[in-house]
């Protein structure tokens, strides 16, 4: 019943994925370049810097993934850990 159907959804084709990446990079670039036209009023000075939000978002996420990864070494257990 749950046999995989022939998987040719356009979202799964490598060409589409590549195209999505291109669009994504373009949008990322646009959000930074838009700062040339629109001023981001920083509340604490540095948050108004050019590209601050992008860098801050990327780096905080990277930091959180790293912290999670490190804690995972201590905290992760097989999912039947509590089973009797």
């Amino acid at each position, binding site marked *: 019943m749950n046999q995989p159907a022939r998987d040719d959804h356009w979202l799964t084709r490598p060409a589409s994925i590549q195209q999505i990446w291109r669009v994504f990079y373009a949008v990322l670039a646009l959000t930074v370049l838009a700062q040339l036209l629109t001023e981001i009023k920083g509340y604490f000075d540095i948050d108004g810097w050019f590209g601050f939000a992008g860098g*801050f978002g990327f780096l905080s996420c990277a930091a959180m993934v790293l912290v999670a990864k490190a804690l995972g070494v201590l905290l992760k257990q097989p999912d039947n850990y509590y089973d009797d």
Partner: protein
Amino acid sequence: MTELASPALILLAAALLVALTRGHWRNAVIFVAPLVTLWAIWQVPDGVAGTVRFLDYMIEPVEGSALRRLFATIFAIMVLTGGLFAFRQARWYELSAAFAYAAGAVGVCFAGDLITLFLFWELMALFSTVIVWCGGTRAARKAGIRYAIMHLLGGVILKVGIEGVVVHTGSVDIRPMLATNFDTWMILIGILINAAAPPLSAWLADAYPESSPTGSVFLSAFTTKTAVIALIMLFPGEPVLIAVGLYMVMYGIIYALLENDARRILAYSIVNQVGFMVCAVGIGTQMALNGAAAHAFAHIIYKALLFMSAGVVVYRTGKNKCTELGGLFRTMPLTTICGIIGALSISSFPLTSGFTTKALISQAAVDQGLAAVYFLLTAASAGVFLHAGIKFPWFVFFQKDSGMRPKDAPWNMAAAMVFFSVLCIVIGVFPEALYRFLPYPVNYHAYTAGKVLFYLQLLLFSGLAFFVMLPWLKRTPTISLDVDWIYRRLFPAITAWICDAVADPLARIGRRIQYMCEATLSRIYRHHGPEGVLARTWPTGSMVMWVAILLACYLVLYYV
């Protein structure tokens, strides 16, 4: 007399009716009762509606204010939409319990005194446990017991605090306080346990994902948000809440990143979102309290929406784990879209509800000059996009092809999801519609070009981080240990060790006692048993002989 009747009583009566009726009558109760409750909520005037004397206390069962009506309104909308989502799939006792649970939440909203608050608080604990048990599995039964123990513990601590306040101040009134003495600390801790604050946050992610696909939708809404309104009413501006909130925000993100169970990811993100609200209550200004209230309102909608989309997946596939899911967007387009709208809302993406409500909290931090708090909340906003905004929909609906081709949501579940998706966008596009119901006047414009651009940059680059670091986020069939390890593993291990340690000496003492008892018994038997000296029958002749001997002795003595 009617002014003393809390709107909660309508839901409580409905809970009873849901249990007693069948078929169309039950469906009618499920849809009409929340609407009548909504009407009743908006009839409650500001201030105390009436008082009753109970023992020596002035009880105020109904007290109205903008804040109380706002929370009660979203609880009523939630039970209405949750009812729509669940009424064809859930069992009658789960629906009945959900209405009683919602009655508890609405009752807390309108409680004018601590005693009424406590009664409705415990009503919630009771019926939410029933909903966890409705999961029906052995794991759900065990998680339900742990959940109940934790909430009863929280209830006892809250009661100790209330007793203390009543004894020392002589008043049961609900009024703002600070955690300055033992009594107020106990009340604060009792409430924070329901908010899933550290160190006792684990109950939430432990219990909610064990409930049924419909049950988790109800569970996501009431307990933690009732704790938020209790904090707003009792502890606005309590500085410790800022630190507690920030911890919850980060805890939710880290654990959600490690998690494999789809609904458990969402459960951790409840802790994360409630952290934003707790932090706002700690800041305590009018802007911050508005932010906490607005964010709670929006959060209930998008979180229920996320749990609905996850619930549909569990209902259709019977699977919870990201490692077993994936590629469902092909046959579940509506569920996928609704899940994504919920995910964007929780990530406070512009044009969704989260953007217009979370911004109030950030603005409150800015207004108070709390730079560290502001930047941590901003980093957390990026983290929310990471763990809930992308991770949840990606691993459930996209990622790899799991090979499953389940049907999309049944019509009632689909209708509930679409309704909440529309609400997410309406609040995002027309924030004033919500702002005008907030407890304090709002003079804030969420949509300026600069703010929108800032958040777009922040969130889209977080998205980039997710896909760049995707190999590190690969799901593994694991769980993450939490504080609950102490009462699930450490305490039982200590108990077992103590039992072993004392078992040997106890067994020796037992054997000794048994030996002594047996020896005593056999001695008694020897004397009194059928062959015993004292139990023998003596012939008449021997008696006559002894009498003759005695008389002979007497004669001899007489003559001597």
